[in-house]
């Protein structure tokens, strides 16, 4: 057995590209891939300040689902889920995409009503969804404490059987390999430090490795989008927060589905390797520090132990934080900006991983066609002025 070849080249930047994508995470790589695959645009560079997929792509909890309440959200996330279902074969790489089912627990009558409403809304939008009562939850996931005396009584749950998890690194590597094969330059260690602007239009980027001319510039920088946009004189309705997650030591198989509880800010699955992967809610304050407060982890663990008494003797191996860009309505912002030829894909907040292929698909379409993809159209910047918000805060956005 020999060491595998490198999956992509490590090129120096060329003087000019048709499209420069800023950010080499999942969304940037997927956008590059679909620009080539769907639109034949291959004179493209992906500029990454650090290394490929070393930001939130390496820090998320890999949950994939599409059971959002509002029509616009269901459409774009379901588009993404359908892409996930064919992605391993298409990219010729085992993404370990496992449709093991996602439970969203209800702990109060309010949760029950919201859950049932969402199940009905999902079905009307062609998204698979089921309502389970407490006994059915126990049968589906026997290790959840559904007793009536539990601190957070389980009164039922929504179930999306097609939801699940995937191996985040494999997703990034597979997309990077294919993008590279199309001739796209993936340039690491290349920080964008400014933009060349001329008459309200962007014509290039200044980088730590010199200036690069660009026909179009597409931001895909998650938590750092505000910082980049400010360099182009654009203010975006985004706030950057730490979002923490953790893994336990490796365990034998103990949990074969994804369990989420919006009310107590816990979501947990067991990775293929065996560690429990858990996520918390965001830390309250703005931050770019990629770390959060221990008390947030403590509150999340306390809730997790109430739901899963079995985890009482499990040891936490590692905690970390990513910087997520949260929009006012907890929905993404995709489309043109006030600067001509400058595009933005941001505001995915705590839930961007699941959207990786879908976001890349509609963003590439938007960049190539110079008008928003129909699925992206409702997610334009103008919605904050028109008031046509897609308010997923109460519906699905507390925990992603």
């Amino acid at each position, binding site marked *: 057995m020999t060491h595998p070849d490198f999956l992509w080249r490590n090129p120096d930047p060329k003087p000019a590209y048709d499209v420069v994508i800023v950010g080499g995470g999942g969304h940037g790589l997927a956008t590059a891939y679909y620009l080539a695959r769907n639109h034949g645009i291959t004179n493209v560079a992906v500029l990454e300040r650090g290394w490929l997929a070393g930001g939130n792509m390496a820090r998320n909890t890999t949950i994939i689902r599409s059971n959002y309440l509002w029509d616009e959200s269901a459409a774009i996330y379901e588009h993404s889920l359908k892409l996930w279902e064919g992605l391993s074969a298409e990219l010729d790489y085992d993404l370990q995409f496992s449709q093991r089912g996602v439970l969203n627990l209800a702990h109060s009558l309010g949760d029950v009503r919201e859950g049932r409403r969402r199940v009905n809304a999902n079905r009307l939008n062609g998204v698979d969804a089921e309502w389970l009562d407490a006994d059915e939850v126990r049968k589906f996931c026997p290790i959840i404490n559904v007793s009536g005396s539990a601190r957070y009584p389980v009164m039922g749950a929504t179930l999306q059987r097609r939801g699940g998890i995937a191996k985040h690194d494999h997703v990034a590597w597979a997309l990077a390999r294919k993008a590279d094969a199309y001739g796209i330059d993936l340039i690491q260690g290349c920080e964008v430090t400014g933009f060349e602007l001329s008459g309200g239009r962007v014509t290039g980027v200044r980088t730590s490795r010199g200036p690069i001319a660009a026909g179009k510039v597409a931001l895909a920088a998650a938590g750092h989008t505000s910082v980049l946009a400010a360099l182009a004189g654009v203010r975006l309705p985004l706030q950057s927060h730490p979002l923490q997650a953790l893994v336990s030591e490796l365990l034998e198989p103990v949990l074969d589905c994804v369990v989420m509880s919006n009310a107590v800010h816990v979501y947990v699955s067991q990775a293929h390797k065996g560690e429990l992967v858990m996520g918390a809610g965001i830390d309250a304050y*703005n931050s770019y520090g990629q770390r959060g407060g221990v008390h947030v982890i403590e509150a999340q663990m306390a809730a997790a132990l109430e739901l899963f008494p079995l985890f009482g003797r499990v040891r936490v191996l590692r905690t970390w934080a990513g910087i997520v860009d949260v929009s006012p309505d907890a929905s993404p912002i995709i489309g043109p900006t006030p600067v001509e030829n400058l595009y933005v894909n941001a505001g995915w907040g705590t839930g961007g991983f699941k959207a990786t292929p879908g976001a890349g698909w509609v963003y590439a379409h938007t960049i190539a066609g110079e008008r928003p993809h129909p699925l992206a159209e409702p997610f334009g910047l103008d919605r904050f002025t028109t008031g046509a918000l897609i308010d997923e805060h109460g519906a699905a956005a507390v925990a992603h």
Partner: protein
Amino acid sequence: MLLIDCPHCGPRDENEYHYGGQAGIPYPLGETTDEEWAAFVFLRDNPKGWFRERWFHAHGCRTWFDVERHTVTHEVRKAR
């Protein structure tokens, strides 16, 4: 856990407080355009560096006050 200096109670743990976001956002006076109103409601600074922000001592004296905090180092200092 941040240690935040309440002007009334002194240094206290972060989880006694409620976060209030950017400080110094005045309510717009008079008629506003849709763009101005949207900016007032939705647009906030999001700097990587020093940030003037509001905190509410929810589990203490229940005073709102401003501090400056660095959004990378999390260092907190008195608002100037």
